[in-house]
């Protein structure tokens, strides 16, 4: 323990800041969740289609004011807390990644450390692993809180069956934290200056995240099914609408207009047949595909981060300490 404290002593300011920021994030997220749970509104009243209709109308009408207050609370507290659960782990990951090497090389303290430590990779490993654990724990906590807040934002929908906010909550936050930390670390090791490393890392992370989300999106589209609009439930990811021909073929609206012309003006948009045999269909990804999608996206982000960490070891092994 004393050895660990001694090794991490140069990073104590950032670690303290990370713990404070982490505490604030957890406090904000937990506070928002607890407050939103104080609204005693029957779960059934959050189902939009049923609100105000039949028995539920009788049940929910007394809660109209409470529901409006709940919506306002979500806007003023819940959403900012959800943003905090996303931003805090990313900021911590960036600060820790830059401090890991860019600051050391800029201050030339690597001259001291690398002349004392027989193996630089051991020196890096001993510092990197505890810091990485902090980043991952903070990311996991932020992701968990983000999921919980999503569950309160769209009540009655399991956050793990809901494509809303894919990549902005859940384990993807830990993956994103790993990506940010890894890229900031390796760019810092190459550049050896804090501000340039920060700017370059920002750009690289932007491209990396864009790439990961694009690949993830492609995979998600591979899980799509086609059905009628009434089959879609909250949490499904709607991709586009299509036309189902009388022969059972699914075609795009452009093709359908070319083939059927004005016949499309009279079709039923709820997916029922108006007698022509032409129906509107919807291509969507069922919400139960969310766990696979979020695991794939998190793995992509985390895998990129791990690759960057591996590259950091290589750079540290090769580069000059100044």
């Amino acid at each position, binding site marked *: 323990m004393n050895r660990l404290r001694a090794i991490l002593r140069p990073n104590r300011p950032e670690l303290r800041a990370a713990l404070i920021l982490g505490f604030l994030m957890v406090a904000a997220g937990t506070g928002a969740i607890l407050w939103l749970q104080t609204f005693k509104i029957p779960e059934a009243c959050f189902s939009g289609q049923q609100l105000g209709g039949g028995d539920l109308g009788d049940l929910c009408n007394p809660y109209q004011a409470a529901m409006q207050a709940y919506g306002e609370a979500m806007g003023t507290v819940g959403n900012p807390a959800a943003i905090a659960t996303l931003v805090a782990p990313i900021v911590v990951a960036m600060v820790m990644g830059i401090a890991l090497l860019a600051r050391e090389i800029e201050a030339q303290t690597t001259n001291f450390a690398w002349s*004392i*430590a027989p193996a630089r990779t051991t020196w890096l490993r001993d510092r990197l692993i505890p810091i990485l654990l902090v980043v991952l724990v903070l990311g996991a906590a932020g992701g968990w809180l983000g999921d919980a807040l999503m569950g309160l934002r769209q009540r009655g929908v399991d956050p793990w069956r809901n494509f809303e906010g894919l990549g902005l909550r859940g384990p993807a936050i830990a993956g994103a934290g790993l990506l940010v930390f890894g890229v900031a670390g390796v760019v810092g090791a190459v550049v050896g200056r804090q501000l340039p490393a920060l700017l370059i890392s920002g750009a690289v992370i932007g491209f990396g995240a864009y790439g990961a989300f694009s690949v993830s999106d492609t995979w998600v589209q591979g899980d799509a099914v086609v059905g009628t609009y009434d089959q879609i439930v909250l949490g499904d990811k709607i991709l586009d609408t299509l036309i189902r021909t009388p022969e059972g073929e699914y075609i795009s609206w452009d093709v359908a207009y070319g083939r059927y012309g004005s016949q499309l003006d009279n079709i039923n948009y709820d997916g029922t047949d108006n007698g022509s045999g032409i129906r509107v269909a919807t291509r969507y990804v069922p919400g139960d595909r969310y766990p696979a999608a979020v695991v794939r996206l998190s793995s992509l982000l985390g895998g990129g981060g791990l690759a960057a960490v591996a590259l950091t070891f290589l750079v540290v092994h090769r580069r000059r300490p100044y």
Partner: protein
Amino acid sequence: MPGMIRTWGLTKRYRRRSALSDISLEIPDGGVTALVGPNGAGKSTLLKLCIGFERPTAGRLEVNGVDPVRRRDRAIASIGYVPQTASLYRDLSVLDHLRLAGAIRPGFDAAHARERLGPLGIPVTARVGELSGGEQAQVCLAIALGTRAPLLLLDEPLANLDPLARRDFLGVARVAADEGTTVVLSSHALSEIEDTCDRLLVLGEGRVLYDDTVAHSVATHRVIDTDGELDGVDVVARFPGRADQVHILTRTGSSTIGRAPSLEEVVLGYLAEARDQAAAARRGASPGEAAA
């Protein structure tokens, strides 16, 4: 006994500039070797090659029998290093540095390092940023000594120190050498290290200009304080002295010629010889003509 540092055809180039050109040398085990030469002579480069901070462009070297390019970890385990500018963590205390060194260096002797700092009055609880340049250099030296490495590389540590701090620093280095550590001390201010070193290695223009023990250097050279033609004397070079006087460094131990040189004069003579050779090479004349 094998040399503590040995090089064979060692060359280091930075883009077009050559820092070291095909040098082969051996620094023996024990004592204080003064690595002297003007700025840009390659002194720091040689030390950085030893500790694995730089890689040779050509040739090879060994530190305590280990190639620092192939086995940097083992080479560093033999070295205590003090860089040109104290590269310590400004926000950390001296004690934090000792603990850090103990955590990352197997076998680090913190008590030994503290022993060195004690007589100098440097409080271990003080932040490094609050210490003077001399005190920071002393902390670096104490940590380097705490490694208990058999080789101590001191890369121009005196450059930013006041005279008193220099004396303290050199005193500690001398004690370390007396206790069996091989000390290599680079400097371009020879007059200050003259009393501390046992061996002289002069670098200039990226090559070894002179390499011998201090005692032998003084015994085998004489200085003539007049600028005239000298017959039958092996002249190294003419070099300017004080008050526009010209001195001539000669290779002879005969006490009938001139006077015994100071170590600084030996160095100045060989640096002047290198300068003359370079000038002659530019003019296309032979080095002998240039020296005459």
